[in-house]
């Protein structure tokens, strides 16, 4: 498997008037070519900051990449200058956001916005760019693309705009597409269409995708692998089956048992109490401990190491330590639990690498 992205030990701080926010506190993950990795987390988990860091879109100041490497297609982009990044963005990696309106110029016709990008990136004539644009619009499922070429963003519905944004992002055929909550603001039926579109495009264009979301249904639908983020760290990562059918971290358990699904037959939703921690004063031990019903004394004192549960499954929790008591996850998680092939007999300590 070839790695298209390798993030090592990433730490990012934000300098604000209320102090320094340690938004990303040592994050490691990778993406193989052709894979979809879902990054799951809530506000304040650091998922969006991480995504924007991969595009180097964070304004520095107030943001600061304190340490770490982001190796994209073989090159570390952390030390790159903005000029160097201009060649990377759009060509190697591109991003789509939750709100398409912020990426579209409301005073320019849609077709022109895309064609302009193509002309810049591929040095083709205006005519060729127009033809390619119409092809792109067709590819993302916009009906009457030739007509729509001459329309303005406000004439498109939310779902259509999202399609346009996907078209723009894929115009230069990047190897990596980062999608930051692209369907969160969309209706369910439109969301389903956009997800289907993304899956199709991934196949035709062989793009790898990082999909950021907090919707576990979308994760189950789209992802090959999942990374769960909390308080600026990745606390569990594994294949999509491992995360849903054999999760090991109390936060993942909390997420899975606090979401009702249509077939949910449980009596009460297990809400995770409290709120995520304030990252201007990063927690000393396990960031999730204050809200976890499985917290141990050591969680309050020392940051947990990383344990490996299978070739692809890593967990950052003291609960996997041989000295830790055996615990059962909540009922909602147990109902779906199965032992997957490839699971080690005992978790193996691997330290800081996840």
């Amino acid at each position, binding site marked *: 498997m070839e790695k298209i992205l390798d993030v090592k030990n990433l730490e990012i701080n934000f300098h604000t008037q209320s102090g320094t926010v340690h938004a990303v506190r040592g994050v490691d993950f990778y993406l193989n070519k052709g894979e979809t990795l879902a990054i799951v987390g809530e506000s304040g988990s650091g998922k969006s900051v991480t995504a924007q860091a991969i595009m180097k879109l964070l304004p520095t100041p107030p943001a600061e990449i304190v340490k770490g490497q982001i190796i994209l297609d073989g090159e570390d982009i952390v030390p790159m200058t903005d000029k160097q990044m201009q060649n990377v963005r759009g060509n190697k990696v591109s991003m789509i956001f939750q709100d398409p309106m912020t990426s579209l110029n409301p005073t320019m016709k849609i077709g022109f916005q895309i064609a302009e990008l193509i002309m810049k990136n591929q040095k083709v004539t205006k005519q060729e760019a127009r033809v390619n644009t119409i092809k792109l619009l067709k590819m993302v499922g916009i009906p009457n693309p030739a007509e729509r070429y001459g329309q303005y963003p406000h004439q498109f519905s939310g779902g259509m705009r999202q399609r346009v944004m996907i078209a723009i992002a894929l115009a230069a055929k990047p190897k990596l597409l980062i999608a930051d909550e692209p369907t969160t603001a969309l209706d369910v039926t439109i969301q389903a269409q956009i997800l289907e579109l993304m899956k199709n495009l991934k196949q035709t264009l062989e793009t790898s995708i990082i999909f950021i979301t907090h*919707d576990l249904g979308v994760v189950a639908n789209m992802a090959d692998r999942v990374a769960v983020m909390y308080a600026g760290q990745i606390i569990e990562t594994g294949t999509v089956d491992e995360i849903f059918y054999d999760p090991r971290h109390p936060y993942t358990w909390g997420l899975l048992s606090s979401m009702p699904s249509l077939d949910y037959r449980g009596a009460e939703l297990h809400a995770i109490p409290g709120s995520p921690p304030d990252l201007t004063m990063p927690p000393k031990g396990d960031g999730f401990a204050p809200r976890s019903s499985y917290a141990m004394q050591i969680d309050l004192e020392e940051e947990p190491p990383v344990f490996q549960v299978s070739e692809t499954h890593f967990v950052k929790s003291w609960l996997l330590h041989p000295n830790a008591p055996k615990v059962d996850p909540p009922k909602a998680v147990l109902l779906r639990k199965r032992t997957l092939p490839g699971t080690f007999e005992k978790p193996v300590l691997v330290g800081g690498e996840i």
Partner: protein
Amino acid sequence: MPEKLLEVKHLKKYFNQGKPDMVKAIDDVTFDIYQGETLGLVGESGCGKSTTGRTIIRLYEATDGQVLYRGQDIHKIKSKKALKELNKKIQMIFQDPYASLNPRMKVADIIAEGIDIHGIAKSNKERMDRVYELLETVGLNREHANRFPHEFSGGQRQRIGIARALAVNPEFIIADEPISALDVSIQAQVVNLLKRLQKEHGLTYLFIAHDLSMVKYISDRIGVMYFGKLVELAPSDELYKNPMHPYTRSLLSSIPLPDPDAERNRKRIRYDPKSHQYMEEDQLKMREVRPGHFVYCSEKEFNQYQQNIE
């Protein structure tokens, strides 16, 4: 048989009536809400569910139709005194935790606004006691009373909004997408709080949302809206097990489940309004296909649905 608390009869709300850009936000909607139940109202953007909630509480004036609260037509009330009484009985919780609290007001004043308007507290001490009581009821600390909204997280702000609504001891609460803007793990907190409050205070809820899974969890019955019309109304489990209207079936089939195996096998059903092939003479109305299960359809479709059950 619990009594009917709210009766919505042929409610219509049209915006820009008579102009070319007229919008029929609510187009002849009828349903009842019984004392003590939670009625869920779902649909996608533009279906009119939020407008319905706001028209019921009279933030908007109805274009036509009636909203009866305990038999009294809300939109016909003229006296300020009577309106104030109604304000105490029906309350609302809003969607946006950032826009639903006045950023310049202290939390204590926000929560106590209803108390202040209706003169419920006789002294400052009584007022503050009630505020502290409400804060604790919603799971916040007393010391939060002196802080400002921007110091709180989304979930905490929603709880402040709930405390504000509870301050006047309402009977009926309309929750307009109260959890849509919240993080996943926080949604469960707020929903559990609402359920607990319902039990403790005997509240009746109209729960408006677009997340069908959450609505199904909290509601006794669910109404599905599509472009200003109510297309299906049934008990929650029944709606999920036997959806009949093609839009409902399309909606249910589009929802991704947090289960990879299920997702690999899920087949989405698309909805095409033209598939009904309605004729001019078709009479479209809500018909009871099964006990308590209503579907908006023509006579022909009604017969079809009944046959499908057998």
